[in-house]
């Protein structure tokens, strides 16, 4: 009988940690091994073949960290270099990470050793094991010292694993190193910002540090032209931190500078629109319109524009923004999409549209975000109004204030994620 996934996951996790620890402490030289650990041995027997192969492969690959990697060519059928290259590329594109890791061990081994370590790191990152990925990115850095993308990827792993002590330590180290590239400094700045968002102490100090380190990078821009996505992310990091420090004008100037350099970037326009929402609603709406014209992937400009039209009783326009938002925006966050369906339902109701369409929109909104009290209130109010059309109903629709902090957090993450440095 097959074991439950959770049992296999626990056994896998235990073996992963055992292998990492054995390598880190070179436990093979210890006089008393843990071969008598029956539970550990039984855990191995629980693992399916794919995971056993992955763990054996990891154990073998980890020897590359101490330049003691070995291969048994007899394990593999000969394969022409070009075919191996094609299969490697195809597996990488299809995100078949076990296959990628296997192919890297096959002869002919034509990929440079630092790049092999980078690809292994990417595979483990995608498999969700950031602590393992970190080891391979650090090894890639060892083999190609000073190469910023490897260090950046290591920082991303430390952030993902919430190892803030090490992440901050490295960010500080990079900020003090005169040879650090702008890209690396920008991502170091993001580490300070990300840590400040975890709600610990000294948030203001961390935000200030983030601004300083990003500025360091901006001052050095002549030495390296980072990828656009990294530079855009840097502007957003700096502006977010300035805003959190209450330095509104400086935050606005930062967005202005970013938009001047990247006028076609919808995320920068959306971020500036959110910043101006409370101070300059006209400018904010202009930014959202521009962002939408540029096919923004964030749901917020569509939602803000739709809400703006709704509040002015322009229900057709509100519906059009909702339609565009549902068509174009990234729909991987149900709670955000629910807001568009809620507004669509309200606009349809105000237009006296069909009850079926209104009902469908409300039901979709509720099913996408069952915990949103404003959506539930609107749906329940609609049910009362539609069943007793002649009776007056107290209260109004709840266009609750949008979670501005949440909007910014989601937008920030989308911008930071999009850079995904290639080595």
């Amino acid at each position: 009988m097959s074991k439950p996934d959770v049992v296999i996951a626990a056994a896998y996790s235990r073996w992963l940690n055992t292998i990492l620890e054995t390598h880190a402490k070179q436990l093979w030289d210890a006089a008393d091994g843990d071969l008598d650990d029956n539970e550990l041995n039984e855990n191995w027997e629980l693992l399916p073949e794919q995971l056993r192969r992955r763990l054996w492969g990891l154990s073998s690959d980890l020897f590359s960290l101490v330049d003691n990697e070995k291969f048994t060519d007899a394990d593999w059928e000969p394969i022409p270099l070009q075919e191996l290259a094609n299969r490697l590329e195809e597996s990488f594109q299809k995100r078949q990470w076990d296959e990628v890791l296997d192919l890297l061990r096959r002869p002919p081994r034509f990929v440079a050793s630092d790049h092999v370590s980078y690809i292994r790191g990417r595979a483990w990152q995608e498999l969700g094991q950031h602590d393992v990925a970190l080891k391979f990115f650090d090894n890639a850095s060892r083999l190609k010292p000073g190469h910023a993308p490897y260090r950046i990827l290591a920082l991303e792993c430390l952030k993902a694993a919430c190892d803030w002590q090490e992440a901050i330590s490295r960010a500080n180290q990079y900020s003090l190193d005169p040879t650090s590239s702008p890209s690396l400094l920008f991502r170091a700045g993001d580490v300070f910002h990300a840590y400040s968002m975890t709600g610990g102490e000294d948030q203001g100090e961390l935000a200030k540090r983030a601004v300083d380190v990003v500025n360091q990078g901006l001052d050095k821009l002549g030495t390296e032209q980072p990828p656009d996505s990294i530079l855009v992310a840097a502007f957003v990091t700096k502006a977010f931190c300035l805003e959190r420090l209450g330095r509104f004008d400086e935050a606005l100037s930062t967005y202005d500078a970013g938009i001047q350099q990247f006028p076609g970037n919808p995320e920068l326009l959306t971020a500036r629109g959110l910043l101006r929402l409370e101070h300059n609603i006209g400018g904010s709406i202009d930014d959202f319109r521009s962002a939408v014209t540029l096919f923004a992937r964030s749901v917020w400009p569509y939602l803000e524009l739709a809400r703006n039209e709704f509040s002015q009783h322009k229900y057709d326009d509100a519906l059009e923004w909702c339609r565009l938002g549902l068509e174009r925006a990234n729909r991987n966050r149900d709670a955000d999409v629910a807001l568009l369906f809620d507004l669509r339902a309200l606009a349809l109701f105000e237009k006296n549209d069909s009850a079926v369409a209104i009902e469908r929109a409300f039901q979709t909104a509720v099913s996408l975000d069952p915990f949103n009290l404003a959506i539930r209130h609107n749906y329940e109010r609609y049910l009362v109004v539609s069943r007793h059309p002649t009776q007056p109903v107290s209260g109004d629709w709840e266009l609750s204030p949008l979670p501005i902090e949440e909007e910014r957090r989601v937008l920030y993450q989308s911008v930071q994620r999009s850079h995904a440095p290639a080595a």
Partner: protein
Amino acid sequence: MMRQLCSPKMVPKRLHDTGKIPGAIGPQSLHLFRHGEGSFEHSSVTEQLTLVPDGDDHATVQPSAVMVYADYRQALVNTRNDWVSGEDDPDE
């Protein structure tokens, strides 16, 4: 075979160093021995012991009949002189 059935910690690390079994991280105090020849078939090892395959390339040595543990253990010890180092064998 080894990599399907045993964990990396069940194979001494020196077999990694020699390039024989990459990834082996077992204690160096471990040793691999071979006993007998041929494929894994249900057969008699000694009068008291029987080879019972549980796969194409793996088997367990079991008592031929019900016996006390000490006798089984002694029966295994009695085969000691027939063991030879298997660390130079090809990995199948």
